[in-house]
């Protein structure tokens, strides 16, 4: 099942469905990193609000996307992590993977965060700790 990826201004938006498989994750990773360059995007929002669980594999892929996007000149924001998912990740010790990754409550917040960074002229390279 393909993950829908939208382009909004200079930002790519990927909404990850709850039925996502490991193969989907890999395809998504390749597609996002390819499009970021081709479409000259400087921002990326990864919306995981549909997911009931973020396992070790998913967090590794997400971290890979965030770091690789950074090298390709785009700032990625992870949005919509559910309270239960967040706490489960903390308890499973998976948070270290998201160390230094920007997060926001939902899509709207994520876009606002990227916009703020753009205005400050920090876009692309710098990431908030």
């Amino acid at each position, binding site marked *: 099942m393909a993950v829908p990826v939208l382009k909004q201004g200079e930002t790519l938006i990927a909404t990850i469905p709850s039925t996502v498989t490991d193969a989907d994750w890999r395809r998504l990773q390749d597609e996002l990193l390819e499009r970021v360059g081709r479409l000259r995007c400087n921002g990326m929002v990864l919306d995981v609000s549909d997911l009931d669980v973020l396992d070790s594999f998913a967090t590794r892929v997400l971290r890979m996307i965030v770091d690789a996007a950074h090298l390709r000149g785009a700032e990625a924001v992870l949005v919509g992590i559910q*309270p239960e998912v967040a706490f489960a990740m903390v308890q499973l010790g998976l948070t270290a993977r998201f160390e230094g990754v920007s997060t926001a409550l939902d899509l709207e917040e994520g876009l606002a965060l990227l916009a703020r960074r753009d205005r400050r002229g920090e876009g692309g390279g710098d990431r908030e700790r």
Partner: protein
Amino acid sequence: MASRADEQGPVSTTMRVTDQDIHLLIENVQDYAIFLLDPEGYVASWTRAAEHIKGYKAEEIIGKHLSVFYPPEDVEAGKPARELKGAAEQGRYEDEGWRVRKDGSRFWANVVITALRDERGRLKGFGKVSRDLTERKRAEDELRRLRDESEQRVQERTAELNKSNESLRAELRARQQAEEAIRALSTPVLPVRDRLLILPLIGVIDSHRALQLTEQLLGSIRTYRAKAVVVDITGVPIVDSRVANHLLQTVEAARLMGTSVIVTGISPEIAQTLVRIGLDLSRMKTRTDLMGGLEEAEHQLGYHVVSVRDAGPSL
């Protein structure tokens, strides 16, 4: 069932039974008072067993009416006459009840009155057979009393149990209500500005409460779309490594959701404890007190606090 007659032909016996023998039988039976009444119910014959059971000698009783054997209330109710009438009509009448001896004492008797008729069907009188069942009656009554008593005791016990059960249940209810109230009180999440929550914690945090705190905080972040939360622990007397760890995990989880948590009101003692425990708390944003925490949160949210001096009425 086979009888001797089937196997060996007619039963033969050497005894020739006479009327006198029958009389002997009636005279000598000890457990039954067997005597005759004339058609009007006056005593016509008497036996030793009758004397033994009822206390009257033959010369005292023959010619007296049957009603002397009954308690006054039965006589008044017409019981003797009714029994005679019943026997005359149906051939026999059986009764169990109180009867009176000569000395006035009562005994519980089984009485059968049989109508005696000649071959033409004329009523010649009545045969009366009485048996003293006082002992049996007493045993039965005693048994009944014991049974009633134990039944009552069981009922009392059951009632007692029900009562204590009920009070236990009431106690449990009251306790659950109290617990719920405490739970609601223990983690108050207060929205102070748009997208800014404060969570003032008071009292000891055990692991149960810590878990509840996490759920409440993360849930509220979602509900209020909070971007910043100030957790004030001024009122928490002790923070051990488990609670500190839990707090840290909650802060981390909130961060994953895109919300920053600022912890305020860490007392000098708790601060030292946390350092001694050696947890990595560097990622936890802290401020001295709630005021400082609110200022930091407002700054993050882009609020600017401007002090305005009012110089009195203008214009």
